[in-house]
């Protein structure tokens, strides 16, 4: 800075109106921050590699029936559209929640780790905008992970076994194009419980201010609820466990569509997600930004 004295200076005018950024602008930059971090790609790599690995493995071993996949496992080599359903069945219980937790648990705590929360909170954005943008970014990441996995599984499945009709859980055969639509819808419905889990991760991230703690805590919730579901005598609460909602998208793959589990999933997930988001919001709103 040896020549700063000669450099043109920033003036300090009295301005009429300062145009403040929209929440959409903050959200875009939250996405750019995610894109700039290597860890973002770890989860996405997993959801890309696993479907590919699955399809390659099936091709190499020429297996015509996947025992764990039920009716869709039996159709694995008959229609490429069975593959994304099978992958959603396998990944929805644990891997996709883990991938979503990686970013949700980190989204606020990362700012604490870097000491950058004070940097963005001393600009022209309110805490509410930052909260909304970060929560949306975590949700966006989870959605991208789900649909990326579905897209890879669909393309790989169709490339291997063709674009053919499939039989639903009810035994009804649906056309390939309708099956493709159902695959998309099933993944969309799966996002309901996943978003509730993201909300929990966001809450832990905002309250613990510790990335590792928040990520592990979010994954820990999933494991805990799986364990609770296995405890004899607690069958009564099972329908209300978040992890039980991870499979409710299967209602879409029945003919006629079984909306009951989806509706149930929606309000149960709201019970988990909404309080978590409110708690996270209030925490961010009231907390002291110290350190860094």
């Amino acid at each position, binding site marked *: 800075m040896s020549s*700063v004295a000669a*450099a043109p*200076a920033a*003036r300090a005018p*009295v*301005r009429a109106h300062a145009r403040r950024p929209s929440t959409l602008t903050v959200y875009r930059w939250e996405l*750019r921050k995610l894109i700039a971090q290597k860890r973002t790609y770890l989860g996405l790599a997993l959801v890309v590699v696993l479907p590919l690995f699955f399809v390659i493995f099936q091709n190499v071993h020429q297996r015509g029936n996947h025992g764990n996949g039920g009716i869709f496992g039996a159709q694995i080599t008959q229609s490429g559209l069975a593959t994304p359903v099978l992958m959603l069945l396998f990944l929805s219980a644990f891997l996709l929640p883990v991938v979503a937790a990686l970013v949700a648990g980190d989204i606020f705590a990362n700012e604490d780790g870097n000491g950058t929360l004070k940097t963005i909170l001393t600009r022209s954005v309110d805490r509410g905008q930052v909260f909304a943008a970060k929560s949306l970014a975590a949700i966006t990441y989870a959605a991208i992970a789900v649909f990326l996995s579905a897209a890879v599984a669909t393309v790989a499945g169709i490339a291997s076994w063709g674009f053919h009709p499939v039989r639903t859980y009810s035994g009804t055969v649906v056309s390939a194009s309708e099956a493709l639509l159902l695959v998309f819808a099933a993944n969309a419905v799966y996002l309901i419980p996943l978003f509730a889990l993201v909300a929990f991760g966001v809450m832990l991230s905002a309250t613990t201010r510790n990335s590792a703690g928040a990520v592990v805590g979010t994954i820990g919730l999933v494991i805990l609820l799986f364990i609770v579901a296995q405890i004899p005598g607690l069958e009564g609460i099972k329908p209300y466990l978040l992890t039980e909602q991870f499979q409710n998208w299967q209602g879409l793959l029945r003919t006629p569509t079984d909306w009951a589990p989806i509706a149930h999933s929606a309000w149960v997930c709201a019970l988990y997600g909404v309080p978590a988001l409110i708690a996270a919001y209030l925490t961010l709103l009231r907390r002291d930004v110290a350190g*860094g």
Partner: protein
Amino acid sequence: MSAGASPPGGEEEAPPVRARGLVKRYKDVLAVDHIDLNVRSGDVYGFLGPNGAGKTTTLRMILGLITPTEGTAELFGRDPLRYGARALEGVAGFVEAPRFYPYMTGLKNLQMLAALDGDGAPARIDEVLDVVELAPRAKHKVGGYSHGMRQRLGIAAALLRRPRLLILDEPATGLDPAGMRDMRALIRRLADEGITVLLSSHQLPEVQELCDRVAIVDSGRVVYEGALADLRRQGGAGYRLRSTDDRRALEVALSQAGIEQASIGEHGLAFEAQEPDVGELSLALAEAGVAILALTPELATLEDLFFRLTEGAGATDAGNGAKPQAVHAR
């Protein structure tokens, strides 16, 4: 500022910083104890105190980063806790070290912050990079920046907002001597252009060189607030006198009312007195046949005064005057 954006009471009269009775308590620890600050438009205001005195906590409360246990802080008449980001319009700076995203380049960091500023800030990125001379390293990741480069990036980020008030917390910390000099030059220049500066610093020479008004805090309390010149005057009006006969001059001085602490040292007679008493002494010396060769006032240095105010009388030996009163000269 438009009328529409003005807080009640008329913004034109609102000072850049006005804090009243700020208290921050962490369980049993009283970090800040009823601090009042008044930074006026155009001030280069020094905020001094030993480590742990509560300076940074006070700045965080002023910027709305932490909630005071008691009291209020206003920026141009707006309380950040009430007005949110609107209270920060025209305000920029950093508390403790400026922090950035290490996985992004300096340029990307500035682009993000400019986007979060709005108001045309993105168009000023190149200009502020030039001002802090970081343009050649702008496309390097901040993770690889030196401490000094991050400080400069912090200044650049602050200038993006075209501030009317610049709040800087130890901006020269960790800089080499040349970096410190350049940082002072930059602050001086910004102040000359009309930007009010609130400068928290441990660097007493820096404050003495740059600031016209100061607040000195100790153990969470303001022990002095007011003009630096007033503080130095309070520190004791010391004088040094060389004469044709220093021993005779000492005898005369000791017999004069209002002359205190008179003694002969290596450089002649030293004493403390108010100006009228100095006049009387000069007449008395003439009557006694002692010619004055040199009579020079000696103001206490800021360092002397700082230690006297924050460490008590034990540190006054280093100075040449009485311990100044803890006052709030507003």
